[in-house]
């Protein structure tokens, strides 16, 4: 069944141009994020350890496709390395949110009763904040830095996964095979983690990687408010903010990092859109029938 899901999803991706574009963007982003440090034209500029004032504010050219900033650093190199930091933040936020959210949803769903009720009410309290706001509060309390950014975002993020798992566990736990496991005397922990969890994870497994786009976007928002990573880390949101002061003199310093955010997040969202459509039963049926013919 799971293999069939993947096959249908890929078929859907191939069938629409926009989701194909999304797929390619995401793949490209992952690739660049992984190999970024090895393909930098000006590695020292990218890490922000060098400056050559005589080269400052150069407009885009062949040597500097995205121009240079006020310190004479190559913006292109910084944007490329920024992909690595965005990838770290995205994986970190989604990963940590899963580590917090999945067990809470699982326990709340399986144990149920007063404990489950209490856990879900706590989850609801976190949802009372608009997105990013809780992260702003936490980041303002914890201070700047890569790790603090990830923690702040993950704590405002896990509730979604807790709810998804909770709903799924509730529908799985009444199935006969769970009763069977209980009858043969397996412990609650074994049932929860070995037998219920794998079957409750599918929606989260699909959702979580696609949320990485939103995580990148929110991290950029934090950086813009001066709460994200520390300079001179080339995080995309921070690069936009750094170029803001001299935008009338050199638009390229802010423009290209922002464009990188837009393209990457767009890629994730286009892909998410295709997969959401793939989970629409009407569309699935049409595709499945087509395949069998």
């Amino acid at each position: 069944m799971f293999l069939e899901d993947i096959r249908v999803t890929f078929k859907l991706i191939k069938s629409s141009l926009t989701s194909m574009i999304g797929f390619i963007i995401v793949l490209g982003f992952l690739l660049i994020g992984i190999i970024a440090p090895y393909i930098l034209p000006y590695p020292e500029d990218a890490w922000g350890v060098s400056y050559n004032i005589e080269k400052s504010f150069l407009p885009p050219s062949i040597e500097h496709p995205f121009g240079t900033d006020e310190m004479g650093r190559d913006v292109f190199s910084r944007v490329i390395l920024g992909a690595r930091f965005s990838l770290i933040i995205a994986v970190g936020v989604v990963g940590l949110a899963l580590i917090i959210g999945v067990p809470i949803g699982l326990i709340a769903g399986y144990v149920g009763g007063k404990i489950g009720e209490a856990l879900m009410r706590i989850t609801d309290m976190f949802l009372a904040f608009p997105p990013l706001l809780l992260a702003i509060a936490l980041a303002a309390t914890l201070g700047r830095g890569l790790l603090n950014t990830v923690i702040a975002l993950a704590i405002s993020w896990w509730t979604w996964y807790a709810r998804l798992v909770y709903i799924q566990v509730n529908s799985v736990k009444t199935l006969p095979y769970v009763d069977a496991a209980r009858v043969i005397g397996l412990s609650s922990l074994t049932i929860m983690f070995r037998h219920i969890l794998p079957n409750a994870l599918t929606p989260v497994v699909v959702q979580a990687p696609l949320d990485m786009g939103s995580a990148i976007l929110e991290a950029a928002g934090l950086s813009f408010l001066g709460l994200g990573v520390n300079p001179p880390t080339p995080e995309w949101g921070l690069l936009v903010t750094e170029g803001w002061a001299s935008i009338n003199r050199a638009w390229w310093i802010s423009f290209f990092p922002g464009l990188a955010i837009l393209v990457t997040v767009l890629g994730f969202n286009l892909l998410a859109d295709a997969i959401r459509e793939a989970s629409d039963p009407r569309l699935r049926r049409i595709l499945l029938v087509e395949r069998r013919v």
Partner: protein
Amino acid sequence: MPISKEYIIKRLILLIAVVFGVAIITFIITRVVPSHPEFLWAGAHPTKEQLEKARRELRLDQPIYVQLYYYLLDFLTGNWGVSWRTRQPVLKDIQAALPATLELVSLAFIIALIIGIPLGILAALKRNTRIDDLIRIVTITGASIPVFWLALVLQLILSSWLGILPSAKRVDEYIIYETKFKEITGFILLDSLIQGNLQVFMNALKHIILPALVISFYPLGLSARMTRAVMIDVLNEFHTKSLAAWGLPKRVIIYKYALKNTIAPVIGVLGLSFGYTIIGAFLVEVIFVWPGIGYYAASALISYDYPAVIGCIVTAAIIYAIINTIVDILHAIIDPRVRI
């Protein structure tokens, strides 16, 4: 059928519970998470006396439940601390900044509705054509674009390069003085209309239009997409099909019958998008030097004005909760199924 009183009361009780939850979480973040909260509350580079004073005000020498009790008491009585930057009570600063934000966000939602709904109808009628694709792309782009970057780029092009629109503030100060404009509600557009002061109105409109457009981008795409989806469903239902069979013109069916059915879901989805939109507005305010809560909060963040930052966050969360309540009640009025 009028909406039941019980539903509204139930919803209002939930609202109180949510605000209470917001207060508790804020307490945990500001007092329990940091190991030395007095450093955050005493401003940048505090002296020993300032630290001592902050410690006394926060009652850090007392057990945590006593701290929580006084915290909630202060929260309810509007004693939200004093801003280190403006030397004013935080709540007073926020009251002064609130109308500017509300005006901006309201206009953004109005733009989203008057462009989004017709666009959605168009997409539903021209299904699977270029227009349909375009709206899909606008919607997804709206959710993917860093809103502060969009604001920066548009400000650069329209204000700095082309000089069509002003780049900052709500209104030009000299016009306020020249025309003896008086504030009544704090909404400049509304106040100038009440006073028949067209000069201020046009000037304020010119200032607000660009930030409002930037903010409206996200809810606009959402409302267009929701309208499209509902419209397609409604047009496929039997009651609309039978209207067509009776020979009613398509125009009448769409605008008189089908459109009514789209309103409830569109309001619902706009309500859901409100949280995201207001955060977007905060970031855009910073770019356009818009004297609202977002700008106030960002200035406070830069100067380590912690009480002001937390006050803004609590305010935004409360507004979010109130809007959600209003949307739910509106939803129930329009769509009777929700009331159950």
